[in-house]
């Protein structure tokens, strides 16, 4: 697993600071703002901007002999509000992805551990331009262009690979009373400056409150990377990966909720088994995450990965949150677990694992 990746060790996952001037979302005047995010901790290695060849944005901020604790600058963007129609908001710079449901920032997730789709199948950040426009109170359009990456606009930086541009976009619908939300988002574009093969993903997220205490989320991702895998004949072949996540949360009390996540993730073309040193291959399981030192395991055959996670979310005060979770993972077609914390390139010797983990989130 990425993020909470150390067994029986205390980790400081995120020391997270951000400086922001949020732009207005209404009114007749132009407005200008921006945001800069800083993260130090064991999560940072998974969210840095890798680009290719590796850029200089946040990859080399720590001494090379520091093994797990790193610094990331996952967001640095200027924002503009233009009073056109219902109000157009633009972000220019480096920003978090709009793809998927789970996010990097700890307070915004129910569970401490993450879904496979988020860890291995989605981008974390982009560099480029992103606009959002509310068509009306129910529909929002988001779209833009991203660059600086070797993997179709994912996790790009500022100073490498700027010749390859991908499109990013999505449409969201929310009910009047905010009880139901549906988002579909995606990216598509050339893999890199030197590889014109298409790299794409879409993600569908449906959120619904059955009651004010019972909440449900459905997510489906499907990614496509042309020529990113290696066929039996040794030639490149198209790769695909996909998954389905189901979440259900129940508020037991004002400060205590219980949640269950069930997930299935399919690496259908063994992209993970591609040569991790080949810059154009293996990004489904992330160049970033490989360099970060921990991946699902390389040289695995095409596999399906499953997990159930049961967790509590206790908020005894506004600034404190505790999130214990118990998780059972299993795989068919490979044995990715119990690899002794080895870096990518070493498969494990087990087809399943049970994981208990917990964290404490203090906001200030």
């Amino acid at each position, binding site marked *: 697993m990425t993020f909470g990746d150390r067994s029986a060790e205390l980790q400081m996952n995120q020391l997270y600071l951000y400086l922001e001037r949020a732009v207005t979302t209404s009114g007749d005047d132009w407005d200008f703002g921006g945001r800069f995010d800083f993260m130090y901790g064991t999560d940072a290695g998974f969210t840095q901007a890798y680009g290719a060849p590796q850029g200089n944005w946040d990859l080399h901020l720590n001494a090379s002999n520091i093994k797990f604790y790193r610094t990331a600058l996952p967001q640095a963007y200027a924002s503009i509000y233009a009073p056109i*129609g219902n109000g157009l908001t633009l972000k220019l710079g480096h920003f978090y992805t709009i793809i998927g449901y789970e996010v990097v920032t700890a307070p*915004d997730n129910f569970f401490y551990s993450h879904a496979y789709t988020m860890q291995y199948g989605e981008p974390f950040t982009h560099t480029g331009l992103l606009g*959002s426009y509310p068509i009306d109170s129910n529909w929002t359009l988001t779209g833009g262009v991203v660059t600086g990456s070797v993997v179709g606009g994912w996790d790009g930086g500022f100073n490498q690979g700027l010749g390859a541009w991908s499109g990013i976009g999505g449409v969201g619908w929310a009910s*009047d009373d905010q009880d139901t939300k549906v988002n579909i988002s995606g990216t598509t574009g050339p893999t890199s400056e030197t590889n014109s093969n298409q790299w794409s993903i879409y993600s569908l997220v449906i959120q619904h409150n059955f009651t004010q205490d019972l909440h449900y989320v459905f997510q489906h991702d499907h990614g496509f990377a042309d020529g990113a895998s290696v066929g039996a004949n040794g030639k490149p072949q198209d790769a695909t990966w996909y998954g389905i996540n189901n979440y259900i949360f129940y508020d037991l009390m004002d400060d205590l909720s219980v949640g269950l996540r069930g997930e299935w993730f399919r690496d259908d073309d063994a992209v993970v088994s591609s040569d991790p040193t080949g810059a154009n291959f293996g990004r489904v399981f992330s160049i970033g995450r490989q360099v970060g030192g921990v991946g699902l395991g390389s040289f695995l055959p095409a596999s399906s990965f499953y997990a159930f996670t049961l967790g509590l979310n206790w908020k005894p005060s506004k600034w404190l949150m505790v999130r214990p979770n118990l998780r059972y993972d299993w795989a068919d077609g490979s044995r990715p677990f119990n690899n002794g914390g080895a870096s990518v390139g070493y498969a494990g010797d087990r087809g399943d694992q049970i994981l208990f983990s917990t964290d404490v989130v203090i906001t200030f």
Partner: protein
Amino acid sequence: MKNNMSFMGAVVAVFVSCAAPSMAYADEQGKEAIEDLQKATQDSAQGATSKAAKELDEAEKHLIKENKAHPYAEPMKQISGEAPKAEADRKAFRELKKAEKDAKKKVAGDAADEAKKALSDVKEKEKAP
């Protein structure tokens, strides 16, 4: 070229001027939602839960009208601090509905607490950029 620029300017001006009346209407709806929530908080605390339930229902309608009159871009994903208006709006609807449910069940104390939270969330939303 100059004619094109003038045309573009006119289009932008029309967009901006059309937005102005809806802003005033949206502000008015926001104020009325706050007034209804203040009444609902007081009435719930005094045990007048049926009256509070009606006021909460009215408050919800005003919030919906406010959003229709002046929609905001709903973020695709929730990142702390990035969309304060959307965050406060979501919390407000949630607390408001809890309050309404408790008011209908005649659980006055909980309804009052939840209406108060909804009021705080709506005020936060109105202040948010």
